[in-house]
């Protein structure tokens, strides 16, 4: 055990953890909107819209996140047309490519979580809203969405933790996040166990915090 290395690498790894958290929070926020959008499409009765939304979530849940990042980072740059558009400003940055991949990925999982939450809402609640003369739009935004959010909290908490682990793949496209820096230190010092303990500890700490925040929210928004 090389305690000195562990202490010396801690500040570097903590700095990198900030990047991990940035990647995580930005992609979660974008992913939540994507997920909500596709969950609503899934509830649509039009078979084409429905199939399209299902196809999206099937493809993104059925392929590894690494493939998705590589397609966006290495693949899209190959299209000449894209290089001449405004989009290229975003797509040439590995940081944004990673975020796009993460957001699309978590969006697919989130859409499934929200869809099942919408489907478990008791019809009686919606009927009660209708009989009170509330418009469909208000029922959706003021009744269905809050209930769905409460229903999906436990599953969404898991998704946040999975996504946090997923952000480690950003290191494969040259971003120095927590895993990226950990790998760099390991490959320069050849002390994998020490670095793993420190970096793994930081990850576990973040998991612990997320887990408890979700638990707190679950309690706060529980029905009784």
């Amino acid at each position, binding site marked *: 055990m090389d305690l000195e290395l562990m202490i010396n690498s801690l500040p570097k790894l903590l700095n990198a953890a900030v990047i991990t958290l940035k990647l995580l929070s930005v992609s979660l926020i974008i992913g939540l909107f994507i997920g909500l959008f596709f969950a609503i499409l899934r509830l649509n009765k039009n078979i084409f819209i429905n199939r399209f939304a299902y196809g999206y979530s099937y493809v993104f849940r059925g392929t590894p996140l690494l493939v*998705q990042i*590589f397609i966006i980072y290495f693949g899209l740059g190959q299209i000449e047309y894209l290089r001449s558009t405004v989009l290229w400003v975003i797509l040439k940055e590995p940081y944004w490519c990673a975020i796009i991949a993460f957001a699309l990925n978590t969006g697919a999982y989130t859409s499934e979580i929200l869809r099942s939450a919408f489907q478990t809402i008791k019809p009686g609640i919606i009927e009660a809203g209708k009989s009170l003369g509330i418009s469909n739009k208000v029922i959706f935004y003021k009744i269905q969405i809050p209930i769905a959010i409460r229903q999906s909290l436990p599953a969404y908490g898991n998704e946040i933790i999975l996504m946090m682990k997923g952000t480690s793949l950003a290191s494969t496209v040259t971003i120095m996040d927590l895993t990226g820096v950990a790998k760099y230190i390991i490959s320069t010092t050849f002390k994998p166990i020490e670095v793993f303990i420190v970096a793994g500890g930081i990850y576990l700490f973040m998991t612990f915090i997320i887990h408890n925040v979700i638990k707190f929210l679950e309690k706060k928004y529980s029905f009784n």
Partner: protein
Amino acid sequence: MELLAFGDTGWGDELFRATLMTIAVSITAMIIGFLFALIFTPLKLSKNKFLNFIANSYTTIIRGVPELLVIYLFFFGGTGAVMFVASIFGYNEYIEINAFITGAFAIGIISGAYSTEVFRGAIQSIDKGQFEAANVLGFNKFGKFFKIILPQTLRLAIPNLSNVWQITLKDTSLISVTGLVEIMRQSYIAAGSTRDPLFFYSFAAVLYLLLTFVSMKLINRLEVKYSRGY
């Protein structure tokens, strides 16, 4: 399409072999995971606090730390660990572990943590009466486990194990960082030499989709088999 030709002109046969490699690594990792689950599930269910603590640390750490970090630990630390154990037995030569074993072991440990949780949940949800009835009927410990508990556990566990399998299959793409030539690594090589990453990574995505689709169909059949009588 020419890019996918078999033989020297295309990447078809290479990608086919890489797909077989992905399947082989996934199955090996899944089996290693089952072995870990076999050890840690009883520890999780045991009444001994210390054994509980060991099993809980295993599942919590592995499920809370990114897969890539675990793979790096094994990739950089695996050789050192094996050489250290060998040096205790007086063997001091350099030992090279191949990428397949390192990768399958790293993914296996991850998949084992998920399997442990699945089996724990399944065993806990079996009615207490089943254990008691088996005792009353005079089954010995062995018969009780294999004839009464295990078949019911499998029925409850298979849907969740199919999720673990999907996770394991997708996680094998991360082994490409260690240089094992599976789908991802082969696509990386092909993309580099043809300068056509979009095509090859998309094709890799299709291969993974195909694998998950086919395995889902097979697992559904297994599910039907184990839930007859319900």
